[in-house]
């Protein structure tokens, strides 16, 4: 018999009899369960006997049904009769009355005000951690520079390849596209005044002073910052960070220094590349507006001076330091669990982008006052 059945009847002495029969397993009992519970609830003040004589087989789900009936709050007694000894032993493991309340542990919801305050204090603490970490990383970096032999140069080389060489195609693609779009969009209104040639000035200054460093930094945050956070985060989850600490190796020096050095070495090179390719993208577009390549290059050469180049290039060092640092920090802050690594990577990218905006703003103000 592959189904479960319930028969409700009245005994001569006023008891309610629920006769369960068949196979009490999860697949067969949902309807029986509902009906039985309904019958028991409808007879709160009458004694009830659950007759399990007809039960052929009963697994954990069947036992749960019996427990559920037994724990119903009621005035008159309820009992289970004729249950096979093997199943009775299973039923005896559960205290039906205690199962309901003692285990009702739901997470508490906090009021909104408390939630806001809590979040604000978390943001404030996070800011302090970032500053602390910046100091720690700088100290580690300075120590490394003073004793270059303590740096794990092999690791630096590997990271350099991933941060630098492997990023070339995407940096080339995006900066070329940026040059093309910028040139195209500005050439349309410029042509009205017959001033297409000044597009070269715009592209040259824009790419060298601002966009080359910015686009490289944004790509770095998305590619490298996230990768650092995920790598170090996974190490945190696997307790590798704990292992380093107990070996007496400072994780900041061991993991962060190599990555930050690699990023600081590679990002300026990528930035140079982005400046060049972006400008080329502009030149390429202007060909279709009848501006020859040579003319474009001459115009750029005339307008962009060494100060512009330095202004743009210096930023890339700071961007690299900030993005690699924040990526490593988010990795080290990873909590436990599979989703934690994903959270860290996300936070690394978001914090990286926010930092880029802040740093770029600071540079703009400084350059304005220094008149560069």
């Amino acid at each position, binding site marked *: 018999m592959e189904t479960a059945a319930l028969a409700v009847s009245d005994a001569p002495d006023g008891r309610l009899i629920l006769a369960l029969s068949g196979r009490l*397993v*999860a*697949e067969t*009992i*949902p309807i029986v*369960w*509902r009906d039985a519970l309904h019958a028991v609830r409808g007879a709160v003040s009458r004694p009830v006997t659950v007759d399990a004589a007809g039960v052929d087989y009963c*697994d*954990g*789900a069947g*036992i*749960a*049904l019996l*427990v*559920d009936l037994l724990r119903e709050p009621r005035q008159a007694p309820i009992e289970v009769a004729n249950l096979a000894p*093997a*199943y009775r*032993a*299973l039923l005896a*493991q*559960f205290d039906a009355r205690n*199962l309901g309340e*003692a*285990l009702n*542990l*739901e*997470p508490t919801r906090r009021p909104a005000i408390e939630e806001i305050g809590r979040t604000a204090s978390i943001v404030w603490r996070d800011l302090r951690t970032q500053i602390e970490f910046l100091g720690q990383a700088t100290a580690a970096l300075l120590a490394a520079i003073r004793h270059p032999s303590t740096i794990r140069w092999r690791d630096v080389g590997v990271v350099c390849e991933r941060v630098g060489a492997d990023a070339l195609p995407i940096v080339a693609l995006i900066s070329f596209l940026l040059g093309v779009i910028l040139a195209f969009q500005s050439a349309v209104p410029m042509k009205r005044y017959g001033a297409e040639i000044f597009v070269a000035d715009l592209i040259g200054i824009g790419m060298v002073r601002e966009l080359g460093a910015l686009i490289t930094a944004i790509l770095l945050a998305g590619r490298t910052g996230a990768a650092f956070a995920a790598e170090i985060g996974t190490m945190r989850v696997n307790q590798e960070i704990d292992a380093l600490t107990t070996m007496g190796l400072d994780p900041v020096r061991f993991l962060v220094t190599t990555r930050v050095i690699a990023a600081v070495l590679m990002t300026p090179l990528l930035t140079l590349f982005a400046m060049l390719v972006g400008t080329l993208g502009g030149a390429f577009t202007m060909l279709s507006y009848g501006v020859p390549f040579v003319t474009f290059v001459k115009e750029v050469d005339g307008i962009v001076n060494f100060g512009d180049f330095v202004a743009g290039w210096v930023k890339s060092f700071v961007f690299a330091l900030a993005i690699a640092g924040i990526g490593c920090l988010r990795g080290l802050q990873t*909590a*436990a*669990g*599979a*989703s*934690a690594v994903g959270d860290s990577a996300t936070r690394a990218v978001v914090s990286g982008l926010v930092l880029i905006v802040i740093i770029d703003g600071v540079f703009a103000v400084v350059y304005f006052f220094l008149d560069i």
Partner: protein
Amino acid sequence: MPDPIIRVERLTAGYDGRTILENVTFDVNRGEVFVILGGSGCGKSTLLKHMIGLYDVVAGHVYIEGHDIVDAEGEARDAILHKIGVMYQSGALFGSMTLLENVRLPMEAFTSLDMEQMNLLARMKLSLVGLGQFTGHLPNEISGGMQKRAAIARAMALDPAILFLDEPSAGLDPITSAELDALIRRLAENLDVTFVIVTHELASIYAIADRVIMLDKRVKGIIAEGDPRRLRDASTDPYVRQFFHREADLATPA
């Protein structure tokens, strides 16, 4: 009387061109507690993972209640998988779900019970393994041993006919470990649940095992099979004797 619920037939297993096990054949009978033993690296966990269809076999067959899990695909494979529950060595609980949700997940997917009924059932499973007070906790809020017990509760969620446990008592204190042994015996005797267990714990093996097989990496297969006490007392194989006696000597100071 033997009624094999699992039959492993001439199983050759390995990966990356390396053979771990060669031509292994054995039966597991219904309702018995079957223990796979052996030194580190002999292929215990590999064998277990082949028996639950997680790895592709090189050659051979694994029949679960008469159905070959090696060739099964789609619905046929799902039907076989519904008969088994697995507890992995690390617990493998879903970190973003509470213990209750972890245990409830297979019920939500494969039964038509109400949410309330599933909650009760999940609570009962968790209280069976002594975690009744922790239903609302996330896996990372409880200890490693507790995670392991919660994983057993999840493996039992659908009351499978066969439970595979990979190192269930590793990382548990002796009392919890003994309670777990008692639970295994109770389920095996009262519900006819068949257990296939990978473990090293000799105390636990004597307490629960009806039959053991012992693997060895030198022969890439089974070197001993039978009742663990008989093997301890009567085996002539030096390695088997060493395995049982070294530990037994330590456990009972002469």
